[in-house]
């Protein structure tokens, strides 16, 4: 139920709507809950609403920590 999908903003329609790209699928969503979105931002989308921005630096930092703790020889950070 609380599943939400990361999507990239590709077009701002009006102050409360944007077109996002979800792995190749384009969809118009409501951006009423997140202010000041820019084209290129990543958001978490749930039932047609952006709930929050995704922070690319935090994502990279989490992946860095995971790779650090993961006991894999010669690992590379994916993505």
């Amino acid at each position, binding site marked *: 139920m609380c*599943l939400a999908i990361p999507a990239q903003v590709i077009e701002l329609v009006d102050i409360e709507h944007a077109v996002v790209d979800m792995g190749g699928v384009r969809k118009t969503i409501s951006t009423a809950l997140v202010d000041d979105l820019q084209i290129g931002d990543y958001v978490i989308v749930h039932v047609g609403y952006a709930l929050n921005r*995704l922070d690319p630096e935090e994502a990279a930092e989490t992946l860095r920590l995971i790779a650090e703790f*993961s006991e894999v020889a010669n690992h590379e950070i994916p993505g």
Partner: protein
Amino acid sequence: MKYLDEFRDGRLAQGLAARIRREIEPERRYALMEFCGGHTHAICRHGIEDLLPAEVRLIHGPGCPVCVLPSGRLQAAINLVERERVMLCSYGDLLRVPGTQGDTLLKAKARGADVRMVYSINDALEIARAHPDRHVVFFAIGFETTTPPTAVVLRQARREKLGNFSVYCNHVLTPPALRALLATDLSSSPQEAAPRGVGGVDGFIGPAHVSTVIGTRAYEFVATEYRRPLVIAGFEPLDVLQSILMLVRQINASEARVENEYTRAVGVDGNRKAQQWMDEVFEVRPSFEWRGLGELPNSALAIRPAFADWDTERRFAVPAIQASDHKACACGEVLRGVKRPEECKVFASACSPDHPLGSCMVSAEGACAAHYHYGRFRQAVTA
């Protein structure tokens, strides 16, 4: 997809599991509850339990809104759509949840009732605009993730003075349910007593997307009042494994802190705008029934009087129905983490996703359906 694929890397997952195996202390037991159905689904789908050492046990919690909706509230919706001839819009999972005597919204639809499945509450609003001669009811369920969109639409309906639309509000709140679980049985030390049940939970995997809205601060009481660690985690397998490692480390150090693994989407305060709008539209119900947990104080939302014209329960008589669940169904115990799905007498026999007797077998996030779909129960049988 970016932000999904890189958090599903199998090699890194194996490596995290190896790290967890190395860091556990053999004399300890780690009983960890994932509150949220999204985590339950991810754990079963990605086979995370198979990667973990025997000392780490995952307990599925009650964070599946379809599963905790009492059958009386569902039967009230079936009665409403048939008696008042409204158009009822609902998220898909609810259509197959049994009400009283096994009746469902899908069966009501087959009898001729106007029941429609929607992806978003916005679709319900569109349907109401397109059918001014019909009354459209949106069957709202969900935790804090799903509630803000309902608030947005109720504000919109009031702005438009849309007279043929209302919301049957069943939104529930995460922190009071966590509190109820923690208050159940913590008189005994988690390490020595109660191997089953919440009294024996050593730490919590905290919800992902509920937390994007309410923030990490909302969970502080778990650490300060109940001395349990809680780590907020994303829904991908690397997120879940990383959060388990963080919990193992806290438990080894006898610490109880709220930590955040899902920093890419969750902050301390959450989404303030969403919180503000929820507060404008909803008020806390003094008490609400949860399937499996009973009446929990301050655990659900009702629509404020200022939005009374769009509140289904004020527009129509929606009498409270006392309904008991199927006698053989152990959903209540499964939702409290007292029983595993395969310990229910009817699991995978009389109760299956095609013919669910209980709500946990309906939603893909229900513990029983997740176990059934991904075959985890077969290993338990042959082991």
